[in-house]
């Protein structure tokens, strides 16, 4: 007895959907298990008072995104085309865009 093509398809579809569900279960499980790893990192961040991920280490304004100057070399304008490739992967920090919240308008630094 030949299997119908539609049955083959529907079975593989269901199988693929189960695999997708498995990714959710796997993700959930790994997130639960990552607790100690995350805690370790969080503790290091707390002790060393770190503020940024060390994903992009080519330049100082890519290394410490949240600590960047208003005016950095190669980056005179927040949206300027930059020299560093990873700059194309990250959005200029809100601090530089002028869209960040003005905490106290009178003392805001002129750009």
């Amino acid at each position, binding site marked *: 007895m030949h299997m*119908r*093509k*539609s*049955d*083959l*398809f*529907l079975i593989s*579809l269901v199988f*693929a959907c189960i*695999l*997708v569900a498995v*990714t959710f279960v*796997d*993700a959930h499980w*790994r*997130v639960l298990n*990552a607790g100690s*790893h*995350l805690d*370790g*990192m*969080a*503790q*290091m*961040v707390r*002790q*060393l*008072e*770190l*503020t*940024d*991920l*060390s*994903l*992009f*280490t*080519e330049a*100082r304004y*890519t*290394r*410490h*995104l*949240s*600590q960047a*100057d*208003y*005016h950095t070399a190669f980056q005179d304008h927040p949206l300027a085309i930059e020299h*560093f*490739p*990873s700059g194309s*992967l*990250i*959005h200029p*920090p*809100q*601090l530089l865009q002028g869209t960040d919240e003005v*905490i*106290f308008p009178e*003392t805001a*630094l002129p750009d």
Partner: protein
Amino acid sequence: MKSFFLKQRYLIDFTLSSLLRRSGKNIGLLLVYTLIVFMLASVMLFTHALRNEAGHVLAESPEIILQRMIAGRHDLIPGGYLEKIGQVRGVMEKHGRLWGYFFDPAIKANYTLMVPRDRSLGEGEIVVGAGIARTRGVGIGDILSFRSADSRTFSFRVMDILQSDSELVSSDLILLSEAQFRDFFGIPEGFYTDLVLRVRNPKELRTIAEKLTLKLPDTRPILRDEIMRTYDSIFSWRQGIVFILMAGAILAFVIFAWDKASGLSAEERKEIGILKAIGWETADVIRMKFWEGFIISISAFLLGYLLAYLHVFYASAGLFESVLKGWAVLYPEFQPIPYIDGLQVATLFFFTVFPYTVATIIPIWRAAITDPDTVMR
């Protein structure tokens, strides 16, 4: 209801037969489409996971960092500012922080030098991040030599290496004592890179920041919330940009789907004529053709997503490494923690299955209204 499902199964039977008949072409199509979904899904899963991880980890950052600005540039801040701040209600703790960058010409990498407050290091002692240890090939007890700002050579003994599972935040760090830091960079006593304030109640942050800007008009406070929101939107922004770029690929694919559906060969047209003549209704032909597009796009979607999951969470997103790394020499080795949610998958679905399906509506309809008596002519 039952007959509805029976009918769909028959239509799928036919569609699969007709897809398999042109299997070379259709498998090629499926592969290309899967590749596009794979790229999109990888970017999506990766950035979302990083965003969540950053959110969890950076929640422990200092609540307020106070930086001095001179002529629009970040400058050293005098320790006297700590007194100037004086007593602000809600501030538990305040102190100066010392950190800076050092460009190592030996491997052309930028390090972050930092004075830790949780451990005391002696003369000539440093602790390095796992990324530096790997790139320079050093272990505990080895010596690293750097030239200082005033051209003296400093030799440091590596006392410890920061644990490698925290590379995401520490791969390029060098920790050293305050005295050495000042000596190495030539920073006079009484000056700091910036000030850190610990605040007990997060609700008071804003008031405190407001008071600080009043008292010290040449400084800017950076709030932890801002840092976290910055990271939150950095990743969704970039994800968005990638999606817009990839939209070009999807659009090309949609045009291709449109073209494929509308440029039916004479043979396919005749086939539809036959189907209609032997009793298939226009709506049946439309449904059958719908299945054709849906089978390809849902298969590409599921395959692409599953491959992307393996790529990002089991292969450390290896394909992105060179992109993220840019010109940097140091790159953290890390396995992203798989934070995924239904919204991502639903969005991905809309970006892939939906356009393909919609693009084929009109061509499908055009094909389906073929006169049933064409086969008689």
